[in-house]
């Protein structure tokens, strides 16, 4: 924040002229990039459909209401499958994430030079690819069905859980570990007594948090054929059965709300 001398009087400005120019240029550049992006989007848009959108939206709304309530009787099994995909996927992911996290944390990795980068690679690659893409891939490999969904959710969750977990491991209090080491405990005992109790609350929190997210994600896995309620959504959409679509969307909404409530309750109980 410079103070300028002008005609003997001191003038305070927040930025110097140079800083101002840089700032304006930055904003200009940002605007330009946005304009180009908008241009590209607009080019590949059929504007006739867009102007027609309110009418279509209204049309869909009238068709979709009221939902076809009696269809709920056919949704029992898909809901059960969805729950299983999320829960089993989370459990498998946790089993795999724990060793990966220990290999990735700076203070527990056996080799920071060779093993840690591999663990980090596993984390980043499983994390950056959406579960729907994993599902696509798995369906191509092992065929459609609930099993592909479970594995897709599991793979996607490994990186997420392992990342949060290894950050928790790196934050532990080292003197507690030192104290257990000083008793003459073996490597595994140090792990079980010095490290595990310290990260257990974080672990439980991560597990419930991820389960909540997985419920959301597993509701749509069916769109690509990986089982669960998404399958019904997909087939209803294909035949334009809007009253069924609206019912399914309501069910998904309810599932999301309930799972968020459950995970908040469980987290409250643990911490």
């Amino acid at each position: 924040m410079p103070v300028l001398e002008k005609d003997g009087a001191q003038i305070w400005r927040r930025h110097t002229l140079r800083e101002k120019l840089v700032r304006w240029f930055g904003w200009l550049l940002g605007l330009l990039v946005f304009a180009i992006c908008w241009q590209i989007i607009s080019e590949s848009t059929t504007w006739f459909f867009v102007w027609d959108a309110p009418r279509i939206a209204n049309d869909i709304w009238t068709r979709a209401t009221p939902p076809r309530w009696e269809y709920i009787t056919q949704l029992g099994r898909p809901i059960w499958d969805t729950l299983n995909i999320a829960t089993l996927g989370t459990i498998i992911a946790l089993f795999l994430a724990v060793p990966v996290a220990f290999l990735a944390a700076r203070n527990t990795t056996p080799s920071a030079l060779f093993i840690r980068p591999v663990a980090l690679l596993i984390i980043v690659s499983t994390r950056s690819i959406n579960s729907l893409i994993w599902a696509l891939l798995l369906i191509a490999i092992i065929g459609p069905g609930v099993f592909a969904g479970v594995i897709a959710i599991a793979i996607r969750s490994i990186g997420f859980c392992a990342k949060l977990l290894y950050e928790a491991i790196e934050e532990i209090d080292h003197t507690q570990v030192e104290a257990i080491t000083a008793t003459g405990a073996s490597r595994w005992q140090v792990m079980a007594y010095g490290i595990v109790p310290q990260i257990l609350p974080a672990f439980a929190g991560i597990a419930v948090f991820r389960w909540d997210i997985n419920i959301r994600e597993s509701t749509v896995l069916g769109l690509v054929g990986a089982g669960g309620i998404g399958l019904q959504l997909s087939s209803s959409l294909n035949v334009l059965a809007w009253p069924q679509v609206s019912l399914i969307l309501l069910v998904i909404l309810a599932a999301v709300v309930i799972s968020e409530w459950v995970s908040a309750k469980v987290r409250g109980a643990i911490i």
Partner: protein
Amino acid sequence: MSHRELDDMLGRKWRKPHFVTNPVLRWSLIFGFIAYLIAAFMTIEVDWGRVYEGLDRGWQFILAFTRPDFISRAGDIWGGLLESIVMTVAASVVGILISIPIGLGAARNIAPLPVYMICRGIVAISRALQEIIVAILLVAIFGFGPLAGFLTLSFATIGFLSKLLAEDIESMDKVQAEAIRASGAKWMQWINYGVQPQVMPRLIGLSIYRVDINFRESAILGLVGAGGIGATLNTAFDRYEYDTAAAILILIIGIVMMLEYLSGVIRARVQ
């Protein structure tokens, strides 16, 4: 503390006190969970023959990562990638701009009740609806193409950012804001001087994080026709062109890693 008490204790077995103290509740929880797991496993129909066949294809896919094919579908890949990036940039800009007023409105300590209710409602709807489901509806309304994807991502950004921004404002230091208000500042000045400096660093950090998420999500919107690299990827899987799929996945992972690195650098600088 008396020695009598010690004499009572000696020779007695010691067991760690259980996390759930009520034994009936504890055992029913354990048995309930095991019963659920068994039921869940029973209902997953796994065609092991198909899985066994798939192992070979899975191996082919892993091998594909050693020789990714960027060339044969170069046009599709770069076109899709560009569309994904364009959607990400445009949606992030629009989403962030809209989420700032909504975030302010959703903070109970600065917004009047009616505004608060409306903004919280928007946040809740945006968070409860999956990106992919929103995309399906928007594609049905606006037609295929990146416009639907752009709108989807903007909508999702609003729910994410507004909620976190509102929480941040609600937990800010009251004294600083009151000091500005005490100087007789107008509402806008008060927000500008009392609130903005406190939440700005985190807002920037969260925005960059959201750009990262938007890119990842943009990779799947193509599955339902909302533009981006997802469509190319889907085609690659359908045609069993694993080397093209591997190339696309490598690109996605690379860009996500770069964004993560960038966001780390920027967050470290603003805080």
